[in-house]
């Protein structure tokens, strides 16, 4: 019998000839990511554990994104502790204002196909978009990896998701993953890996795949991985022949198979305040909005800004609506500027902010108050996520967001 994709990554890492779900193994970690929110706790636990040096400083990436730029005076403490940690232990991969961690990790080539990567953030699953097994952990475990380079994991069962055909033009990968989360429910993939098969995913860009892997944690997934192809190899600057072993065998054992026709998908939205409360956008069309947000590690990439710019070209944001656009990284910001998208947004009356986590994590750049309604492209609509607990958050695609910003009400995009 064959193996699933994630089993193959783990088998290669530990040098095992076979593995079955449920087994617990110790892996050698290829890379770790720590962000500004947790670096003080990681530093404290690391010292408490008695470590004096990091196993391999080259494998550690420290990214400031949640607090950049600072919005409260106490935020500065995180940077001071982080900078001291960098100095004390010789870290070299430090990004103080380059963008959101989950964009930078694959974009900068820190997370590559076949790698095993852990990060102090639940959306670390994102790097599955480039064929990487990546998952979120707590700060205590991160401290132990920094000292040992090792991590224990339970080999997960895998859910095979098969989609064939061509998606309708107004449907993006965000609609696909939201629909999947609705069908799986918020715990349907707990401790499991999602593996994506079929022509629809083969035709998807790497960016679209990153969006899907990013949001898979909202169904509880430990990882959500696409087999690397030519597009991945180009994106990650690797030879395909070096990573073409990263795929799930036809005769591998899956705990569940979910099959769809691409043509059946429609634009959908996660309604307040559960990520698995999925409705067709058409069902809630007309809902009055106070704000629209396009950005985050889920949908702040160039193709997301491109689709939004296409819809907003020559149009104006509705008078009473604030449209906030946050590119996911400085590279995306630059590329969007060169492509003329930023100019389109500004002429439409949008607010374009610096790359960062600000609004998505409810800290800055557009937080909302009681009874306000926002349609946002990020990944969580939990109570209180983007302001007070009486803010209504709808999640949707960049296309739905841009179309809704023009009309001022939730709108089915037409592309």
């Amino acid at each position, binding site marked *: 019998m064959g193996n699933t994709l994630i089993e193959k990554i783990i088998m290669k890492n530990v040098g095992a000839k076979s593995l079955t779900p449920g087994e*617990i193994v110790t892996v050698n970690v290829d890379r770790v990511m720590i962000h500004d929110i947790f670096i003080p706790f990681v530093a404290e636990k690391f010292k408490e*554990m*008695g470590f004096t040096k990091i196993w391999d400083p080259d494998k550690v990436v420290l990214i400031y994104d949640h607090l950049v730029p600072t919005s409260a005076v106490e935020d500065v403490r995180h940077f001071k502790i982080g900078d001291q940690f960098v100095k004390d232990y010789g870290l070299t991969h430090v990004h103080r204002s380059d963008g959101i961690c989950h964009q930078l990790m694959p974009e900068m080539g820190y997370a590559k196909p076949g790698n095993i990567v852990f990060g102090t953030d639940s959306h670390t699953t994102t790097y599955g978009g480039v064929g990487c097994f990546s998952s979120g952990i707590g700060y205590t*475990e991160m401290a132990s990896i920094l000292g040992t380079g090792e991590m*224990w994991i339970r080999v997960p069962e895998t859910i095979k998701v098969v989609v064939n055909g061509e998606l309708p033009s107004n449907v993006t990968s965000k609609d696909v993953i939201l629909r999947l989360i609705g069908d799986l429910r918020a715990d349907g993939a*707990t*401790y499991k890996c999602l593996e994506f098969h079929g022509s629809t995913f083969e035709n998807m860009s790497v960016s679209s795949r990153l969006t899907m892997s990013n949001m898979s944690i909202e169904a509880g997934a430990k990882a959500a991985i696409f087999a690397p192809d030519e597009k991945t190899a180009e994106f990650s600057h690797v030879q395909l022949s070096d990573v073409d072993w990263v795929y799930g065998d036809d005769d591998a054992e899956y705990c569940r198979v979910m099959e769809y026709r691409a043509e059946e998908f429609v634009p959908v939205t996660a309604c307040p305040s559960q990520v698995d409360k999925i409705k067709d956008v058409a069902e809630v069309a007309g809902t009055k909005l106070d704000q629209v947000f396009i950005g985050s590690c889920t949908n702040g990439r160039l193709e997301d800004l491109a689709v939004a710019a296409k819809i907003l070209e020559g149009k104006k944001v509705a008078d009473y609506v604030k449209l906030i656009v946050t590119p996911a990284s400085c590279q995306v910001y630059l590329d969007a500027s060169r492509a003329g998208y930023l100019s389109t947004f500004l002429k439409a009356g949008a607010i374009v902010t610096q790359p960062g986590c600000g609004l998505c994590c409810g800290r800055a750049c557009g937080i909302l108050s009681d009874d306000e309604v926002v349609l946002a492209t990020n990944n969580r609509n939990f109570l209180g996520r983007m302001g007070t607990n009486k803010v209504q958050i709808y999640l949707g695609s960049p296309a739905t967001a841009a179309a809704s910003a023009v009309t001022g009400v939730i709108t089915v995009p037409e592309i």
Partner: protein
Amino acid sequence: MEKFTGKVWILGDDIDTDIIIPTEYLALPTVEDMKPYGFSPLRPELAGQIEEGDIIVAGKNFGCGSSREQAPEIIKALKVRCVIAKSYARIFFRNSINNGLLLIENDQIQDVVKEGDMLTVTLGESIEHEGNHYPIHSLPDNLMDIINAGGLVKAMQKRNGIIE
């Protein structure tokens, strides 16, 4: 192999972290202070009745919900010897090992065991109930080292020679 016997408490499926320790008690200063409220939304009497060495037997998705590390800490503070469940939520599972709480996966024992029964667990081998044996997965040595050390911080301190 290590072997122990304990009295069983039965819980169902989807025992979430809010049942294990409700949010309103998380602000209490120590886990010892929180201990009396363990499992209180479901079984308010339980925390007062659990004795050292007892075993919790539960269904699927034990520990689902939030990432609060107090959930395994409470069960450990109640001196429960181990939890046997059909499955565990991912973050709870990791937090348990890292806090030194022994978890065992088995999906057969729930059909036969009643509250108050005695179970004998032989680690890495089986659970014995009224003469019948139910196989269990073995945990690797390094994971048992973490549990036996009393959690991940202590295991690392031991590794680094800070404590014996």
